[in-house]
């Protein structure tokens, strides 16, 4: 039997039993679509996080106070008190490293911001003018914090666009005074809208000189020091320099944690990749279910087509030929289901993209290949039993029944 004829024969069967074909296409389609859509969800989340870190700036090294013995991402978050705080002098000392291009000390807190009768609770960042370059911020109006000694507490501030609109409706905020807690600041600039960036909505923050933030929150301690290395290659040396400088300043104790953007990124990347694989695998279970459905439907089909199978045997079809036609039929169904599923999955992905435009939903290449492949392999596996049953059918009995 020529292969083209096998295909043609199976194709006619698929077309001949429409409701059955539609049922299998639906089951297979849902399975494949689920794998594609769910994995693109995971991949989208991963890319979202990666992009977020990317927007943090390049060659970034983050210094945080405290150190836990187990290495990992952001241990400082887990530790409440640290033996020694990071100070502004610590930050300034880091400039001695040849691998460091610039750095910005960072203090983060929340404050009650008032202008006239309007008031609003917002995050308050204390930093220096270098923060702008390190975080690649852009200005909508005015200027960023001026270049000055970080130990000076100048009463100026930069605010986010949303805050500007909320506090100063209908007028320019530049040159206006606002009050944060019990201190007054003059607005010197408004940040361009950047949206969410690592937990901070820069549209809603107030940035004040770091010394002013120290006074405001009544603390010497820095929350972070953001350090930008000179190049990608100098990230390693920068990290080593920072650890050494701070160890000497802290009486030989290694009580800071230095993390690089790469390390954080790699951790998130790993976690989210594993997550995507896991949910993709869960969705793949529906493919196995579809495979079992194919088996059942094929078994019914063998029973229904007993007469036809008997006839094929009488006409001289070998057992192998009969098995082949049944398996081919299953493969055709699986291919159709995979095509339907891929189309539906892509459609779902587009829909998700419409609903959450911020998240770059893309199906990972392995899902696009693995889902249809799994569909085809399961349908072959699950059609073997019905095909064997068909081939073993006793021709005389099959023909005697009408």
């Amino acid at each position: 039997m020529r292969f083209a004829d096998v295909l043609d024969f199976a194709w006619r069967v698929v077309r001949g039993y429409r409701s059955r074909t539609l049922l299998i296409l639906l089951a297979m389609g849902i399975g494949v679509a689920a794998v594609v859509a769910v994995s693109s969800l995971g991949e989208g989340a991963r890319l979202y996080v990666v992009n977020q870190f990317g927007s943090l700036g390049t060659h970034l090294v983050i210094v945080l106070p405290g150190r836990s013995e187990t290495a990992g991402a952001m241990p400082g978050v887990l530790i409440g008190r640290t033996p020694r705080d990071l100070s502004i002098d610590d930050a300034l000392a880091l400039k001695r490293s040849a691998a460091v291009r610039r750095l910005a000390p960072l203090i983060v807190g929340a404050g009650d911001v008032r202008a006239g009768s309007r008031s609003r609770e917002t995050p308050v960042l204390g930093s220096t003018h270098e923060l702008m370059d390190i975080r690649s911020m852009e200005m909508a109006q005015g200027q960023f914090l001026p270049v000055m000694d970080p130990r000076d507490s100048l009463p100026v501030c930069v605010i986010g666009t949303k805050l500007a609109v909320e506090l100063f409706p209908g007028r320019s905020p530049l040159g206006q005074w606002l009050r944060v807690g019990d201190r007054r600041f003059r607005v010197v600039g408004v940040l361009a809208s950047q949206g969410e960036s690592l937990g901070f909505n820069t549209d809603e923050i107030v940035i004040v000189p770091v010394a002013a933030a120290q006074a405001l929150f009544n603390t010497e301690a820095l929350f972070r020091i953001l350090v930008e290395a000179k190049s990608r290659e100098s990230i390693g040396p920068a990290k080593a320099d920072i650890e050494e400088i701070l160890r000497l300043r802290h009486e030989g104790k290694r009580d800071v944690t230095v993390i690089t953007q790469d390390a954080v990124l790699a951790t998130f990347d790993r976690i989210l990749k594993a997550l995507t694989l896991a949910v993709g695998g869960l969705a793949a279970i529906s493919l196995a279910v579809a495979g079992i459905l194919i088996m059942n439907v094929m078994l019914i089909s063998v029973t229904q087509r007993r007469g036809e199978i008997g006839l094929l045997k009488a006409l001289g079809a070998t057992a192998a030929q009969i098995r082949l036609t049944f398996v081919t039929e299953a493969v055709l169904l699986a291919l159709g289901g995979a095509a339907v599923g891929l189309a539906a999955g892509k459609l779902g992905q587009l829909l998700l993209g419409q609903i959450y435009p911020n998240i770059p939903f893309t199906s990972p290449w392995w899902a696009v290949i693995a889902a249809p492949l799994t569909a085809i392999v399961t349908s072959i596996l699950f059609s073997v039993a019905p095909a064997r049953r068909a081939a073993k059918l006793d021709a005389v009995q099959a023909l005697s029944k009408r």
Partner: protein
Amino acid sequence: MIRLRGIERIFRVGEEEVHALRSVDLDITAGEYLSIMGPSGSGKSTLLNLIGLLDRPNAGRYELDERDVTGLTDDEQARVRREKIGFVFQFFHLVPRLTAAQNIELPMVLAGVDPAERRERLRKLLAEYALEARARHRPDQLSGGQCQRVAIARAMSMRPAVILADEPTGNLDRHTGQEVMAVLERVHHDGGTVLLVTHDPEIGGRAQRTLRMIDGAIVSDQKADAGGNGGT
């Protein structure tokens, strides 16, 4: 051409053993037109199935074209069936989703005959069995007589050595049955060997040679006068 020696066929139904064929000896020469008659359960269909290699005897020897085919594997038997045997059934057994032409083509498809050759043979068969107008119709759009003509054309498509017809008129009215018999007899006239199982004495009597079976044994083997009333 067909030589059966000491053929036994025993079916096991639960605890009981049913002796469907008892030491059957039979010789059929090429070009014969032979009918097998007998009451139902007499083993005539079993005999036909054995000759058609759809069934295997429990004992005995079957030679087809001087070749012992009793011990062949299933696949070898399938090949012999494909090339040497054409079946015609009481219930036609056409594939419902295929057109008349595709049904006729089926044995050639299974045998892997070249498509160009297939088309040529199909065209001839359609003409020969007056089915050209019905070629693209499906079985449910055909009358019983047309269905059986399609089935006969299908059986002839591989130019088999022998045509085995099991009650070919059993599902047809008298008039259509006569028509179908005329078609089968033309196959015989063109040199084909035709074996016919029937319990209709009128149909069976048209053959040159008539076997009578009772309880799995051939009880009489009569040859009609030369020419008989087989042809028309």
